């Protein structure tokens, strides 16, 4: 019996697809998300590693953390969807709701996957399931964004498959049975053929890095995030990227265990710094709010890559940052979605004075800005400080200084755009749509931001243990 957090969303995706009522589909979506969270809590209650008879699908400590993040983020987005789809009732939502659930099922699948091939299948399937979400609006722009997303991610994912094959070949050369289970790869790591492992890791980093949106494979990101509805942006930026980052972490661990850690770390840090720098530069003068968030996501993926490359204590910081980023980005995308609805636009040419027109979402957006740029007292401040501390602790002065200056650059860019959107008066030309904040479109963003604030003030013990266990498991052999 495969685990429930995988099966239930997939079954419900089919059910939703054949549900005739336009109003019931979003409700079923939210109910499934609720059930998913319940099953996830049950899975977290059990001992790590339990959950399935298969050796291939097993919930280990990192998987538990990933599943928890995905489940909570998706629940918030699903509740938001009820309000959003009710407001946009003129749009057909059959394919949208079904694909949302399929994406949830496949992201859970990634959390359970203990096999290099299965991991790839999960990430590929979640990519495909999320593509129709981007073109919900059926505008020429959204179709263009979907096309770029599909072509660039498909090529990236194809390279990741080739990289997985290379690692399989390295395992065959190493004289092992060529098992691609992470556990076996990790124990056989010293015997893996080095040239194939290096080539495999590089291809996998490029492949999954495309999903993360690391520079120079980031070009699809502003387009896709910019054209997708708010909660899709939240799921892409918080869920799918987290899945890909876990894949990168697991592969880095294997590569390090094989004695090629320096090579992997250097690659991660260089790509991470490049992502932070390029994203920071492109955020300056950015007028489109959703594209700004997309570049902010590129920046945070760069931060994660740097933390992964630093290793050691930075692994804990990376995972904490991942959690904070998922919830912080989630809150931002949901509130920007509301602002977009209220102004009928998402560029600062027309969006001004959001605080006046939309007091709740506007405030949340402004607070989210401080959270995402890493200001105290939010959680991202803590995780970024921890990463900086490990950089300086390892005497990586250059990395630390560049890290800090790119953070300032991002703050300047995001700050200018966000303040322009929230302060002042709404221009007379900006047409007033009928949108008002409702409970379902506002509360999810508030809860997500609440978590980011909580993690900045005090990390509750169970959460600390969840992250700590995952970091310990990912540090074995490094």
């Amino acid at each position, binding site marked *: 019996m495969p685990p429930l957090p995988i099966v239930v969303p997939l079954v419900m995706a089919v059910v939703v697809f054949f549900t005739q009522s336009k109003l019931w589909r979003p409700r079923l979506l939210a109910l499934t998300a609720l059930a998913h969270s319940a099953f996830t809590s049950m899975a977290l209650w059990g001992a790590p590693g339990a959950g399935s008879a298969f050796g291939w699908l097993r919930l280990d400590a990192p998987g538990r953390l990933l599943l928890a993040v995905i489940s909570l983020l998706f629940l918030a987005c699903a509740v938001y969807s009820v309000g959003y789809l009710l407001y946009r009732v003129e749009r057909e939502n059959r394919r949208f709701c079904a694909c949302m659930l399929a994406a949830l099922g496949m992201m859970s699948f990634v959390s359970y996957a203990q096999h290099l091939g299965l991991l790839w299948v999960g990430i590929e399937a979640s990519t495909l399931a999320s593509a129709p979400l981007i073109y919900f609006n059926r505008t020429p722009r959204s179709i263009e964004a979907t096309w770029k997303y599909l072509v660039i991610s498909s090529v990236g994912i*194809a390279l990741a498959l*080739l990289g997985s094959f290379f690692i399989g070949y390295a395992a065959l050369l190493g004289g092992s049975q060529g098992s691609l289970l992470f556990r076996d790869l990790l124990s056989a790591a010293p015997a893996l053929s080095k040239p194939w492992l290096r080539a495999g890791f590089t291809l996998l980093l490029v492949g999954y890095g495309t999903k993360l949106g690391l520079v120079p494979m980031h070009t699809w990101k502003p387009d896709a995030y910019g054209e997708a509805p708010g909660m899709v942006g939240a799921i892409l930026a918080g869920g799918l990227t987290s899945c890909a980052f876990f894949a990168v972490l697991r592969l880095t661990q294997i590569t390090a265990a094989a004695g090629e850690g320096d090579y992997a770390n250097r690659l991660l840090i260089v790509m991470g710094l490049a992502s932070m720098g390029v994203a920071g530069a492109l955020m300056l003068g950015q007028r489109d709010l959703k594209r700004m968030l997309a570049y902010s996501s590129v920046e945070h993926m760069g931060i994660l890559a740097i933390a992964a490359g630093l290793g050691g204590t930075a692994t804990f910081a990376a995972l904490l940052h991942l959690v904070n980023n998922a919830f912080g980005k989630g809150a931002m995308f949901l509130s920007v979605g509301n602002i977009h609805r209220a102004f009928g636009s998402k560029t600062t040419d027309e969006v001004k004075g959001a605080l006046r027109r939309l007091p709740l979402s506007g405030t949340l957006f402004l607070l989210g800005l401080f959270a995402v740029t890493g200001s105290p007292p939010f959680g991202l401040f803590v995780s970024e400080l921890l990463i900086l501390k490990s950089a300086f602790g390892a005497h990586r002065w250059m990395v630390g200084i560049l890290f800090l200056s790119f953070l300032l650059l991002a703050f300047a860019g995001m700050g200018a755009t966000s303040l322009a959107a929230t302060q002042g008066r709404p221009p007379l030309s900006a047409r007033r749509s009928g949108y008002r904040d409702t409970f379902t479109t506002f509360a999810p963003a508030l809860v997500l931001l609440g978590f980011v604030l909580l993690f900045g003030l005090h990390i509750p013990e169970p959460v600390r243990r969840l992250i700590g266990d995952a970091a310990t498991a990912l540090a074995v052999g490094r």
Partner: protein
Amino acid sequence: MTSLLSSLVAALLLINLVALGTSRIGTMVRAVALQGVVLGMLALAAHGGLDYRVGLLVVASVGVKGWLIPVILFRALRDVAIKREVEPSLGFLPSLLLGALATVLAVGAANRLPLVETRLAPLLIPASFATIAAGFILITARRKAISQVLGYLVLENGIFVFGLLLVDAMPFLVETGVLLDLLVGIFVLSIIIHHINREFASLDTRRLSLLKE
């Protein structure tokens, strides 16, 4: 057996060059379909015998790549009524020369890497690298959306050739996953192609330039 294997590999490489050199999209679809069939035969020849796993792999490869995907693509072609790739961003002759160069380089690169055994690997690894390179050239140097999809298929075929080295070691489930993902991928892409055509009245990806900094 080795002579059969090397002729299949030669066929694979020739099809790459055909796909790179043709301006007719119909020819390109047929070439890629034929490549799917050759891949199925290659899987059979590489394994040297027939058990149920290899049998399924062959059927799936020939059925999906040789028949199903071409049918979907021809349907898409009929809907959008295009026949040839005009003005590729890189000319047909330069693409062809680049593809040939990539083949030579692939042989060189494969010779420098450690190999598990000497029967299959010296043939399959260069063939795989060369096909992947051809796929990349097609994706980046063609402007019609459908040619890019075909390029993606050639790229996947190259990866599949490498996967043949691991058929015994890799679990069957993964091979199925590969084919399934490919199928769904092409299906989703062909739907999007349909939408591109409806919204932009063209499949020229240069028209897809609303979104930029």
